């Protein structure tokens, strides 16, 4: 169980470190690592707690969210070809990372104020990591310009929700999780293709320019 | 007991005589007599402090001198004598320094007014520290504010001094009124004017405690009330700034220490307020100190930073009282007191060095100084020791007291029952590390730009050697700093034993060993380095040849990155005016003026004062000038009072 917690928290830490960089390829790499750690945590939890379904979910998460999605998004980036760097908006990039770090003790306080059942050994770490991933995803989306960063932030948010669900539910229904994964896959593919189309129409993928569509 | 009261009376009279001499004696006699009188007075204060260091004593003036039925009482105990010792050392240095300073500034400093106000200022400081009851305290506090204000404005012609006077007097008015209100409220709870009865017993004293704390924060220069410091210090003459920054802003710290010393109850709101204000003050002061180009403003912001450190240590002491941890309380209080003492010493030293530079070059703008290592070598050495002390480097006294403050924060992190307080202790330690590094930047800039390199202006080129009395005054303070560093453990343990009944062990570093080892290393290095004298040539600079005076570091460029990183806080407003026939294409004259705009003034104080002005304009309609209207006011008030009076 200890290893599970270490992997989950390491995933959350990698997400926070991801906020500190504006290089899109580095963000995708760190996102991939983060998802891999969560998948490993799922697998070990399956072994320790004897939740058989998680044996199926873990490789799915690792394969789809950990490998396919980052590779697909990197391909999209290359096809767009404009720039691999996203400068932040509202907050400077290091300050947004520090804000994400500041939310870590808040998520710990939230996690320790929940009550846990006996069949949930060692879930404070899991809930902390999940809530922190949630906040980190939102902060990432709030402080970035490019549409690709919005997708990465959304995926991190998704990771957090997944982690939170995995620690709270006794038997995570396999169908639900597979459905969620399918949704994510489809959403990412659509998102990637839309970004491509946006780039073709507007010559850039800067979401702050969306407000020119406002009618006045 | 009566020896102390005779000593006090003697010092009192000496200062009054000095004030009288300043007003009435012929001009030639003023400087030597006043210096001698002040030095004597300071020595008498030192005697009082040494005699009462182990045994407290109390006395009051006789019957004709009383406020109604409250006597003018004084009490000297361990806490007082600590600050009195600081006052005496700094006053002696200032007294030795002042005549030479006045001689070089004779065009706009009136020496009569200066000596008169200075004597009364030191007298009032002594009175405030020794006051035993609230009324005596407030009277001497007012005298202190008034005389220091008069000293700030000695150069009455410039607009800067006028604005400084308004801001300074406004701040002291606010502080005194808050203090007065708080003490009156406390009197209604405790029914005694004596200061020793008035220690905080929360929660029933929460209201007055907050009022008194706010009043003390305004006077001490805690964020966000610190704006008067950067106005007052550049205008005041250097010895006055030394006294103000060294002693006067410690008076509120002394008052808070006294009120917190035997406090009891749940001091948590007070502690949280002081902790937050202290950490923010130190950060704010450090940031602003780095970007200043005027040396005295740099020192003023650095005072804000150090006051933040002391206030945070006091907050740790309050937390110790709330959580019933006497060890923590002792550590916090002693750290605050020790830092107050040490800061008084090295800040006065730095201000006196500023005064020396000012006397030689008649300006303190870092952008125009430079190359003073040839002209003012002894001042450079004293300045270096002062800068090393204020940046808290071992083995000097700044390091010793900052180390104790860090120890108190570490102990707070270890022992507080709530994780939240441990987390805030960590944040405070990280902030203080940042603040220390920023003050390193500020003072390496001040030292490097002023003393090293080539002179940047004619005034710096033609700087004259300073008078020996100025160097003696600084050397006295350097010796005091070194002594305080050497004897830190002894002083801290003594203070702890005196102030707290039980024997509470304090963490300690082997300071004497550290001091002697590092000083001997320094002396060995100096001997070895000066044994050979190398060949001299022009600065290498990758072979570009002789450099002009403009081709070196400038104060603003050194701190430029800080300006950029913290540009939301440190705002520089540049006004550009381009003149000429065809301004856009063929400019003839380009004038650029950069002014630092203070965030607090623009966003908080400006609108606040504007609102007060508008309200006053409306209220002034009540004063219509008609006698009948005033008679109606009197009539209505009379009726109301009669009704209320007969009802109760």
């Amino acid at each position: 169980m200890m290893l599970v917690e270490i992997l989950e928290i390491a995933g959350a830490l990698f997400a926070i470190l991801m906020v500190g960089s504006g290089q899109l390829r580095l963000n995708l790499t760190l996102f991939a690592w983060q998802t891999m750690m969560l998948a490993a945590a799922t697998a070990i939890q399956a072994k320790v707690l004897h939740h058989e379904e998680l044996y199926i979910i873990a490789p799915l998460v690792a394969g789809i969210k950990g490998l396919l999605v980052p590779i697909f998004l990197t391909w999209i980036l290359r096809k767009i070809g404009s720039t691999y760097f996203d400068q932040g908006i509202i907050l400077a990039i290091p300050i947004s990372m520090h804000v994400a770090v500041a939310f870590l003790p808040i998520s710990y306080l939230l996690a320790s104020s929940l009550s846990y059942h006996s069949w949930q050994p060692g879930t404070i770490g899991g809930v902390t990591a999940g809530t922190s991933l949630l906040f980190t995803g939102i902060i990432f989306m709030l402080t970035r310009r490019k549409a690709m960063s919005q997708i990465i932030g959304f995926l991190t948010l998704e990771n957090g929700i997944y982690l939170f669900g995995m620690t709270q539910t006794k038997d995570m229904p396999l169908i639900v999780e597979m459905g969620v994964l399918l949704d994510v896959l489809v959403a990412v593919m659509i998102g990637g293709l839309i970004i491509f189309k946006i780039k073709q129409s507007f010559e850039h993928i800067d979401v702050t320019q969306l407000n020119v569509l406002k009618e006045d | 007991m009566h020896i102390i009261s005779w000593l006090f009376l003697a010092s009192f009279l000496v200062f009054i005589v000095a004030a009288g001499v300043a007003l009435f004696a012929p001009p030639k006699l003023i400087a030597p007599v006043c210096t001698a009188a002040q030095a004597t007075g300071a020595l008498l204060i030192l005697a009082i402090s040494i005699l009462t260091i182990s045994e407290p004593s109390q006395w009051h003036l006789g019957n004709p001198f009383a406020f109604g039925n409250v006597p003018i009482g004084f009490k000297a105990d361990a806490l007082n004598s600590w600050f009195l010792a600081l006052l005496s050392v700094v006053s002696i240095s200032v007294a030795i320094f002042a005549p030479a300073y006045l001689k070089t500034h004779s065009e706009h400093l009136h020496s009569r007014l200066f000596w008169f106000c200075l004597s009364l200022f030191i007298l009032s400081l002594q009175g405030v520290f020794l006051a035993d009851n609230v009324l005596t305290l407030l009277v001497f506090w007012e005298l202190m504010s008034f005389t220091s204000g008069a000293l700030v404005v000695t150069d009455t012609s410039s607009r800067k001094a006028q604005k400084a006077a308004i801001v300074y007097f406004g701040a002291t008015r606010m502080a005194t009124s808050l203090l007065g209100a708080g003490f009156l409220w406390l009197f209604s709870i405790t029914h005694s004017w004596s200061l020793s009865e008035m220690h905080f017993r929360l929660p029933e004293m929460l209201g007055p405690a907050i009022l008194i704390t706010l009043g003390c924060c305004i006077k001490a220069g805690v964020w966000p009330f610190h704006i008067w410091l950067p106005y007052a210090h550049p205008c005041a003459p250097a010895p006055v700034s030394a006294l103000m920054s060294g002693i006067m802003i410690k008076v509120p710290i002394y008052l808070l220490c006294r009120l917190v010393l035997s406090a009891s109850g749940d001091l948590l709101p007070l502690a949280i307020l002081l902790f937050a204000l202290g950490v923010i003050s130190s950060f704010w002061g450090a940031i602003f100190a780095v970007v200043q180009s005027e040396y005295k403003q740099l020192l003023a912001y650095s005072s804000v930073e150090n006051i933040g450190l002391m206030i945070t240590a006091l907050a740790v002491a309050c937390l110790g009282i709330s959580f019933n941890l006497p060890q923590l309380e002792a550590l916090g209080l002693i750290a605050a007191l020790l830092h107050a003492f040490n800061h008084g010493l090295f800040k006065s030293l730095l201000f006196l060095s500023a005064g020396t530079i000012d006397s030689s070059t008649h300006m303190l703008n870092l952008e125009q100084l430079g190359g003073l290592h040839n002209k003012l070598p002894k001042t450079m050495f004293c300045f270096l020791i002062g800068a090393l002390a204020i940046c808290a480097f071992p083995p000097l006294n700044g390091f010793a007291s900052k180390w104790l403050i860090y120890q108190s924060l570490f102990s707070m992190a270890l022992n507080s029952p709530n994780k939240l307080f441990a987390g805030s202790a960590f944040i405070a330690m990280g902030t203080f590390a940042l603040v220390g590094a920023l003050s390193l930047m500020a003072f390496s800039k001040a030292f490097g730009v002023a003393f090293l390199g080539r002179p940047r202006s004619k005034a710096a080129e033609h700087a004259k050697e300073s008078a020996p009395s100025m160097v003696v005054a600084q050397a006295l303070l350097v010796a005091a700093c070194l002594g305080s560093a050497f004897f830190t453990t002894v002083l801290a343990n003594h203070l702890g034993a005196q102030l707290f009944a039980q024997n509470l062990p304090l963490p300690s570093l082997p300071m004497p060993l550290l001091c002697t080892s590092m000083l001997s290393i320094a002396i060995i290095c100096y001997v070895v380095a000066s044994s050979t004298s190398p060949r001299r040539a022009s600065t290498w600079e990758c072979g570009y040849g002789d450099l002009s005076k403009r081709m070196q570091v400038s104060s603003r460029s050194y701190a430029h990155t800080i300006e950029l990183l913290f540009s939301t806080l440190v705002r520089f407003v540049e006004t550009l005016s381009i003149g000429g026939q065809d301004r856009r294409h063929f400019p003839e004259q380009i004038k650029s003026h950069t002014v630092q705009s203070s965030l607090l003034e623009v966003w908080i104080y400006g609108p606040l004062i504007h609102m007060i002005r508008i309200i006053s304009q409306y209220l002034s309609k009540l004063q219509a000038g008609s006698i009948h209207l005033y008679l109606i006011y009197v009539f209505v008030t009379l009726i109301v009072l009669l009704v209320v009076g007969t009802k109760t």
Partner: protein
Amino acid sequence: MKTLFISIYLVFAIVGLPFLALFLLRKTKAILQNRIGPPLLQPLYDLIKTIRKDEVVSKDASYLFRLSAFFVFSITLLLLFVVPWLPLKPNLFHSDLFLIIYLFGLLRFFAIIGGLDGGSPFGAFGTSREAILAALTEPAIMLALVAVAFTAKSTNIASALAQVDWHQFNHLPVWLLAATSLYLASLVELSRMPIDDPNTHLELTMVHEAMMIEYSGLSLALIQAAYALRMLILFGLISQFLIHALAIILPISLLTTAILTVVLIISLSIITAIIESFTVKLAWRKNPEFVAFTLSFSFFASLSTLVEGLSL
């Protein structure tokens, strides 16, 4: 017998290890750049060459110029005996963490004074950048050391390293995260890539080299020797942290610690060389972003001291 071995080990570590570390660092860089690289004793040859040269000092410099070089060297020597960077080494003054941090600060102050003396613009740039980088990394170093001291409940780093906390796994993340944060901070302190290129002193890389550009002869030799010793101290401290983290998982004897220290110091210099060969020097505006990572790791370290209730 034991004291003989200990003294041989100490002499080897203090005198020989700087050469070994620098040699391996330069050799790795050279191999990655398809060169042969300098021999083992190259730093010694450089030192001897520099000492034998004449010293030339600027006309505008004061006596503080040469004095700063001497101070820098002697404070580094003092640090050698205060910081617990080597097992079996006597530590002075309780290895107090605040003393360590402020002695490093004193070192920096005199380096800055030496750089500003003589009024050279290069020195101005270098010292300004050095001061701002120090200001940004100081909270990170402080928090990392305080977090580690918190686990031992004392500000004495030597006693924090000496504590026996085998199988207290909640201390493990603290030591690892503090070691990472210290490594990144030492990249800044030692002016290595990606903060500053130790080979050049122009424009982009004006931090450390620019400060020492005016020095020559004996003073320059002292500063270069101080630099090598500083690298040793910082890498040694980081390796002590890593060894302690290892000691939490399985018990380690003193002999193993001693050997592991040497191995880890050498590995850290090789890793630094690899980082130097594969990263680009960051533009000056981007340096605060790199330093922010250091601060994040320190925050993580101090947060992990405060949590409880994890199954660690």
